């Protein structure tokens, strides 16, 4: 046998076993799920998924989508490979860089750290869903204006973090550079765009009267 010793997330999932995996797919009273998003009902949900692909339905950028993926498939893989939604990027594939961030029921989540079946019935927004048709959001426009991107590979994750920040930031409270730096502290960028990201978010917040 070849020797492969690195511990991967996938290997960990495999080791944990499908039963545990599926039970983790079913929402309990976890802290991250919405309190009453009752799309998955314990009584009607299948008792066990996999190992073959199973049907999966959720809302992607406001549109209902249906696909079929194995239980081990991450949300990031399902989005990119099965749903051709490549805005979320693969960079570390283990939750340390935030390039794959998406908004799940209002919260920013690393899509590489979620199983696709965990979003059954839920609302998922990717960077592709931030604009209104051809019209960029104020934040996206500010990113372009301030050059808050270079190669652009961290940009979709940055935008998800900052969009979430703008949404959760208390109305009327001044937005500061520290707020933005905190919000993007998990977003790694190798080109060094952080200062321009901060400038862009402050401007977008200012347009709402918060800077």
């Amino acid at each position: 046998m070849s020797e492969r010793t690195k511990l991967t997330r996938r290997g960990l999932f495999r080791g944990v076993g499908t039963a545990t995996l599926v039970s983790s797919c079913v929402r309990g009273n976890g802290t991250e799920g919405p309190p009453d998003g009752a799309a998955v009902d314990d009584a009607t949900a299948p008792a066990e998924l996999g190992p073959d692909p199973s049907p999966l339905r959720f809302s992607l950028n406001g549109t209902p989508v249906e696909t079929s993926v194995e239980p081990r498939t991450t949300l990031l893989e399902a989005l990119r490979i099965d749903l051709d939604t490549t805005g979320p990027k693969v960079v570390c594939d283990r939750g340390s860089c935030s390039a794959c961030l998406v908004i799940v029921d209002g919260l920013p989540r690393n899509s590489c750290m979620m199983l696709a079946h965990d979003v059954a019935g839920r609302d998922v927004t990717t960077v592709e869903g931030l604009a209104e048709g051809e019209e960029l959001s104020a934040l996206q426009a500010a990113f372009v204006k301030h050059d808050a991107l270079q190669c652009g590979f961290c940009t979709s994750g940055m935008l998800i973090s900052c969009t979430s920040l703008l949404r959760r930031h208390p109305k009327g409270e001044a937005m500061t550079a520290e707020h933005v730096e905190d919000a993007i502290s998990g977003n790694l960028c190798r080109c060094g765009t952080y200062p321009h990201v901060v400038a862009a978010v402050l401007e977008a917040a200012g347009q709402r009267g918060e800077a």
Partner: protein
Amino acid sequence: MPDNRKETLKLGFEGNVRKQSVTVPDSEPRPWDADTKLKVVGKPVPRIDGHLKVSGRAKYTFDIAVPGMLWAAVLRSPHPAARIKSIDLGAAKKQPGVKAVIAVAEPGSVLRFAGQDVAAIAADRPEQARDALDHIVVEYEQLPYVVDTEGAMRPKSAIVHSAPIKERRTEGDEPGTGGGGTLQGNVRPLPPSQRGDTAKGFKESQVVHEATYITQVQTHSALETHGLLVRWDSDSAMTVWASTQAIFSVRDEMAGIFGLRSQDVHVITDYLGGGFGAKFGASAPGSRLGFIAGELAKKAKVPVKLMCDRHEEHVCTGNRPDSRQKVKLGGRKGLLHAIEIESHGTAGVGTGAGIGRNATGIYTKCPHVLVKAHDVFTNGGPGTAMRAPGHPQGAFALELAMDELGAAMDIDPVQMRLDHDEHPVRKKQLEHGRERFGWVERRRRSADMRARKTRLRRGVGVAASIWGDFGRGRAAVATAEIHRDGTIEVKNGVQDIGGGIATVLAQIGAEVFHRPLETIRVRYGRSEFGSSVGSGGSQTTSSVTPAVRNACEKAKVELTALAAERLKVDPSKVRWDDEGTAHGGDSSITFTQLCKKIEGESIVATGTRPRTYGNAPLPLPGAPMHQIAGIQFAEVEVDTWTGEVRATEVLALHDCGRVMNELTLRSQINGGVILGTSYALMEERVLDNDLGRMLNPNLESYKILGARDVPKIDVVLTEVYTGANSTGAAGIGEPSTIPTAAAIACAVFDALGAPVRQLPITPARVLAALGKVPGKSKPSVTTLAKGTSR
């Protein structure tokens, strides 16, 4: 050969502009100089592909999918040194979804680092390909290995290469460097550089400082990993989507591997998720990615996509070599009298552990200099060019050592640099920066904090950057095409690594034709758009913008002739206004009206950058090109209880020739400073001596700078009119990262009064420097060798 003419240009920099005569070919326009006023070029124009990048619509190589495509995965050596006894691919071929399996290494071959290619698989889905790797059965005979630089230099060390090694050089390597002497054990000397006689110099010195400075291995860690997608279009032609910073190097390497004509290899890099020097060629520095994807695609008869994962990206796609630099400086009468540096560094199994030009190229008033660098081979993944190869390492050691000598001689660091640097732009940057940064007051404050032994200390440092305008003649061929509908296409096969070259090319078109930016369509990122340079050596802008300008000017000559015909005047009487309307005699014709009169589809002209003309105000030592100047000042705050260092502020003063786009330029300089800060304080590849493997091949324990760690960055642009080419552009990518780590290390020395001579400057090293780690002695501060006057 075209005829030449003399042009008198105003060259130099603010406060020092002089008339200078340069020879340019007749086919070229008059180069832009200090008197040229431009309307679009130089302005802070947002990048033209910004809306695509912020909306997730920009498709990078990693995002491309074509019908029927398979995914590849590579089995890599788990051992730092092994001989393959056998490979059995049989079981892997039967795994779900698997369509092709190949051995990349043959039985009998020797593997020299953990991560080297062994075999590869293509399957319907990426997880199937990765799973099937477990079913490849390989028998290894493990061999002795060595992964640490010092260990590899010992007489009884395992030997990494028993035969002379071929250097792998790319466009990312600094021109004029490289080469090497005879291999002895694991050590291979690089060509030394010398000025004067250091033995004599030290004899004449009154103060001698001697210490060893150590830098770590840094990985490029571009967010988009290496990879490519290969589609055979016929038996003799292929299309390759590649995550590359050099489209034409991919084309040529793929053509070479598969015996194709290079015109039949079509390479596409529409968007690129960073490179930093590691993405040249179809192969990664430590993995034959192009061969693997192409061979699997050939075998499976469908397209194959191969993207590295983050682990692979760290171990086999290149890195910045480490260094151990023994620095000896001699001081005499308050001046630097002799510099001697002996350096050993490892680029793993590869070459190129040099230390840049700071010692030889910047402090040219020092009469005696000798730099001897060596490659030390170890069983680690190969190093390769990384943003200013060698320079940050060399700058760190030399600049910190200079401050240590300066402290012994009681000389201010800025003064010390002014006294030995002959570049007029760097001198201006030093003087301007001293004022702007409040250097004197800040130095006084750090001294005061040191004297009071405060818990939190502040310190400031300054360091210099040297780079050349390596823009290449005739490498880039650009096309300008004016269509009947009034749109203008500018074409060149250059890739946009993130620096924003596509936007700058649109600006050039808009400038020449007096047309709105949005009417200029830039076609780039594909080999079909005409030959170009790699994004390496900070040469892209100075190679491609002149070619584009020259093409546009030629097309404009034709358009002017057409306007003259319509306006019934001599072409020399046609005047263009700011809207692109042509005037002649008493009549005029708008740009759109005029374009409708074009015969056939369009007016087409090509242009190139013939050669470098001028090099004002100062050439790179021993070379004919403009020497790019840069100075950075840094301030740090150090917690003397915890040892934590925070970079609080960086003032970056840079020359990049004529500024093409102030907005994207500032982004690039920010990026250089941030990369340098990360190198100074955080990053370090850790190889385990007992396993021979990397322990932190990820992005949580291989730490790169995050948003909260970024210093306040103040950028000052000192524009220089070089006369080197028709636009006067020079590079900035590399110069902007060279001095950062050095300036931070100098600032830490100022804060503590004790040097931290090893990067990254971790809390443990700070505490050791303060003598707070039991069993570790404080570093000895500068030796007063002769105890004579300061």
